[in-house]
């Protein structure tokens, strides 16, 4: 029983890690600091992770997603507090997730920052399919990733959504053999966020 919880926790931790990686956190002062150009800032955002292993489905989400997109140079930054994930199958699972797998104490944030590959006309309303190239930092390990997503512009508002996978091995997240059946080797992340243009 304890083992099961442990496994679940591990899994959860892993997932959270991945999720955090997607979120951006560290704002580039030059790009986003006061006095800079207008940027889109995240007002509401949610990030969700899912681990579909043969024996158990684990899901958790966080609404504490921070992020911004600078339309001038198409750069972006996202961040999420790993500890803010909730919705695990049990509290024990959540604990394992934070303590054993993502080591949230040492690596409290997961971030993704970079630049959008496609040239987007931020002056025009519409739905754009975009690819974001950047550095995904989860569990303190940085990986360059291209993440595909949808971007919808409506007036001063942006809505973005994306889903992608994060292999555990990419971020040095090790899962004991015993919990392999409970934690997927690739965690699926889904992100939804609304942004508003702010000076």
């Amino acid at each position, binding site marked *: 029983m304890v083992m099961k919880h442990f496994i679940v926790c591990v899994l959860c931790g892993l997932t959270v890690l991945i999720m955090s990686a997607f979120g951006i956190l560290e704002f580039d002062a030059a790009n986003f600091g006061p006095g800079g150009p207008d940027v889109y800032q995240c007002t509401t955002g949610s990030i969700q992770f899912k681990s579909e292993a043969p024996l158990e489905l684990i899901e958790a989400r966080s609404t504490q997603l921070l992020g911004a997109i600078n339309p001038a140079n198409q750069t972006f930054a996202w961040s999420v507090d790993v500890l803010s994930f909730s919705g695990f199958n049990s509290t024990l699972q959540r604990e394992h997730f934070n303590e054993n797998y993502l080591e949230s104490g040492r690596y409290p944030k997961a971030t993704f920052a970079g*630049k959008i*590959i*496609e040239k987007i006309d931020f002056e025009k309303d519409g739905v754009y*399919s975009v*690819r974001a*190239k950047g550095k995904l930092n989860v569990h303190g390990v940085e*990986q*360059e*990733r*291209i*993440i*595909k997503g949808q971007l919808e512009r409506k007036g001063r508002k942006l809505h973005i959504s994306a889903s*992608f*996978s994060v292999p555990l091995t990419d971020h040095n997240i090790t899962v004991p053999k015993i919990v392999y059946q409970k934690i997927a080797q690739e965690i699926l992340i889904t992100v939804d966020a609304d942004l508003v243009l702010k000076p």
Partner: protein
Amino acid sequence: MRAIFQDHLGWIWLGGKGGLFRYDGQSFQPVPLPDSLAKDPIRSLYETKGQLWVGFESGSICILPKNTVFLPESPQETRNANPSQSPLQRWIPEEGNPRSPITGFCATPNGDFWISTYGEGLYCWKNERLYQFNTDDGLASTDIYTISCDSQGQIWTATDAGISICSMPEPGKKKIRNITTADGLPDEIVSALRVDAAGDMWIGMYEKGICRYKTAQQSFDFPVSGWTHGPVTSLVSFGSQEIWAGTANHGLIRIDLQNPASTADRCQPLPEQHPLCHEKITALCKDREGLLWVLENEGAIYSANIRIGLLATPSREIQAVCVDRLGRLWAGTEQGLMVQENGQFRQALPLQENIISLWEASDGNIWAGSFGNGVFVLHPEGRVLRHLTEKNGLTNGSVLSITGHAGTVWLATLGGVTEVNQNNYSLRTYQAELGAGYIYAILADSKGRIWFGTDGEGLIVLENGAFRHIRQAANRYLKTVYGIVEDRAGNIWFSTEGDGLFCYTGQNFRQYSTEHHLHSLNITGLAVDGNEHIVLAYEDGIDILTPGTGHVAFFDAASGAPAAKAAFNSICRDRNGHVWMGAEEGILRLATFDEAFVFDPEPNITAVSVFLQPVDFWTTTVFPHDQNYFVFNFVGLWFTNPELVRYRYRLDGSDADWVISKEHFASYPNLPPGQYTFRLQTSEHGDFSGTPEITYSFTIRQPIWKQLWFVVLSLLIATGLLFSFIRSREKRFHREAALRRESVESQFAALKSQINPHFLFNSFNTLITIIEENPKMAVEYVEHFSDFYRTILDYREKDLITLSEELALVRNFNFLLQKRYEENFRLNCIPDGQPGYIMPLTLQILVENAVKHNVISRAKPLTVDIFVEDGGYLVVRNNNQRKIKPEPGTHFGLHSLVHRYQLLGAKPVIVEDTETSFTVKVPIL
């Protein structure tokens, strides 16, 4: 068309606005595109691991899987085919597709796959993950024209801002080195890249033409100064000798890397009248046969055998050619001697002499033999040093051939041979020794021997000061010898009038004639090229003979070579191994490249059909017995001249001999089961020895009823069935016998008990009592009594009787018992009309047992109940009041009853003996 590519099987693939096509030399087979990409132009094609990669203008990418089978349809049908049946598969990584045109693909030896785009930079597919290189990473520009992989596995990208050399040693770790004008690159805008055989990179630029980057020295060389041909769009290299550049508005430029002359001489554009001269070239490709494929902007596709080129000359009818040590081309004509300098021909002699032979002496002087006016000796710069005629002692004024050895020049004339000392011009003549006839050819070989080709006197050799006449060669009588050459191994090759070509190895002669696939016996010129192939010139084409294999390849106008009538003995080899031939229209050049080309058509099996249904023959090799009508479609890819391809095939297991055919298919109806191998060879000249072969092995299985395992299994099953049948029959017999025995015994027991003296005695006693008291009742009693016995006798033979019949019997029995025991015995019986069957006398035996074993008195009356219970049981129950002294009996009745029901296979008889009651439950059948 924008992209052209030859795959590992030899097919030429073409892609562009019109879609994707596969070309076999004769027809273009369209490959349907996925619906969503039907209107999307193709920008690039590539093959790795047998998969064809297709890059589109939109950024989409498709893969044609390895070994995709194309149906042998006519192009018309394919065009009408449902486009959704595209064999192409979309390649969509999780990271998404690029949105900019795909300009190139490249697989590196470490397994990475690179994709270049015009707009998004470079992508690297590594470990199932897509990485992007753009200007933020240090890439020179995101607009990449093309990419190429160098010998170290690095990717070179051509951009408007120079070259970026990229690699990814580890996932996510990007290495980029930029090369710009600061590093010596002549032009910032790089538009074409091509790695040559030596591993160096050739660079095509926008304004400055081409240059080479030496990988080892990390430096540029071979710049072309004063390039006037505009932007370079693509490059192809032929060995280390030639580069061909496609340009944006000046067609094709040939760059001769060996020509030591000026830059202008090195870069030769197409002649003004050529249709491609002012066109934009979009792509170039070199195939395995050495053909150059050219895609022109408007969509035209050209292929050319650039190994054979025609150089236009101011005057026609070139009678003699010679290339000197400076690379200058000398040409003898009826109108005089010409020499080519700076790309232009000029007259080399003051007078219009009729020059028919040319030779460069070891001191660099050019000897020009004329028709009727002796020989001219020219200084390399053009001055005439000597003019020797018959007056000076020449045997004849017409000099047909010139050779030389160790300071001596030999002149073959229409009247014998003259030997000239190169330094003091002293003469010595030979006439009688040579039969005084015409000498057509003369050769000083590497061993110091002088060979003479005579008119009617055969071959003569001067060796150690003595002349030797050779009149017999390979059982042929030699008469006229027209040409003599020596190969590097020292073999002497000579052409004859009417007997073809001979090779003299020093020991023996070997003949090559039309039987050996020479094009003709009218050989007008003979030479050995730089790759030691024997070149035979004819008026209508050229044969190239590979001495090792005896393979002969013929090139004429139909195979992309220029149509030019080669003149008699107007042939020479230059220091680079190229062979030059004087012809009616100008000078033909047969180039020799230090690069191996394929000399035979490549056999390909394109489809295997069974009952006209194509099968996936790459993986399917076993067929059921009724799938036995095979059709093989094949093609021999020989782009040099597809018309010439002939097929030789044999189905091992069916054909005894090879079948030679021009058709592209072979059909085999009704093949019996067995092992087969289809062998296909292709040849472009009918000689199949040593040609490449392709095989397809397959098996047609025996029908299942002829396969050993099936036969054995069937026998086993049959044996088993028979055995179990016999067993069950025996068992049944056994059981029936037992039943019959039991039945007989039980009948016997029943009868015995009924005629049991006690029963009779008691019955008769009862009767006696009644007779006096009630004679009427007595009669009734006797009637029941006799009825009872008659019924017993009737039923004993039967196995089963109805329940009603049995109940009737018991009622008779009850009547008799009633009279005897009066109220002390009571039988409660179910009413008549019950369905079902029962064994005869069952109830009678049970009732009798009850009477027999229990006390019956006024104080203890006996009650027997007969009723039907759920579950199909007939129950007989009596109150249990056993006699203290048991009635002697055989215990046979009940036991036999149980046993008989068992033998019938019915439900078991249940016997319950308790304190208060005795119950027997008998199944109703």
